[in-house]
């Protein structure tokens, strides 16, 4: 199980970008952290979600 934004999700083994696309995250409006570190954009297509990973996906909305 992978903990994503506080919820346990069965996503271990998936590539990060597959998960993001399945969930329809707008890729240009997010930042992703894994186990306390930022995931560089260049790693989205490489990073494999592992059992026990703690992921936080920040989706930005406009206004400021």
């Amino acid at each position, binding site marked *: 199980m992978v903990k994503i934004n506080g919820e346990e999700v069965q996503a271990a083994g998936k590539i990060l970008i597959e998960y993001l696309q399945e969930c329809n995250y*707008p890729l240009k409006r997010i930042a992703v952290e894994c186990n306390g570190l930022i995931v560089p954009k260049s790693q989205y297509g490489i990073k494999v979600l592992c059992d026990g990973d703690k992921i936080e996906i920040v989706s930005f909305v406009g206004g400021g």
Partner: protein
Amino acid sequence: MIPTKEEIQRTLEQRHTKTVQDKLSAAKAAVCGLGGLGSAIAIALARTGIGQLHLIDFDRVDLANLNRQQYAVCDLDRPKPEALRDEILRFSPYCKIRTDFVKLTEENIPSLLSEDEYICEAFDAAEEKAMLTNCILEKLPGKYLVGASGMAGYGDSNSIQTRKILSTYYLCGDGRSEICSEYGLMAPRVMICAAHQANTVIGLILGKEN
């Protein structure tokens, strides 16, 4: 008559204590985007006696900004960094202020923000917020970043919160109230969010995290 630098410093020390004020006076903070959030953040930090401010925006003051941004009609058409600098110097005449009238990009962020210890993300567009956040966290590790997402409308004040996302990254806002045609930005909620950001920066400078 303008008070001397020593008089202003002494007054701040009386308000905040010397130990606290010494830390604030030594701090350098950048404000990226000088709209409703950024103009209010910069004013709050300057009033608190932050030593150095770095004000960055590529835009000029427009009539449509005056419903929520800290500018006056005499500032219309002026570049925001210099209009805000002049406003701050009216109440904090010795604050060291660097201005950059420029659009921040992935290419110029690392060099433009290299001197700043605390960085506030106060952009308007969601894609620009994401770009700045990813760029700073990837390319400028060790900097503190305090961003914002979700402060449109006039609803619940208390849904605007400060969250610690990473050890060096805090995010303020309700996370969802997006600017759209029937739900625009209004001064009070934007100022609540700006105050969260400024207060987080002060807490980080003084070593008290939220």
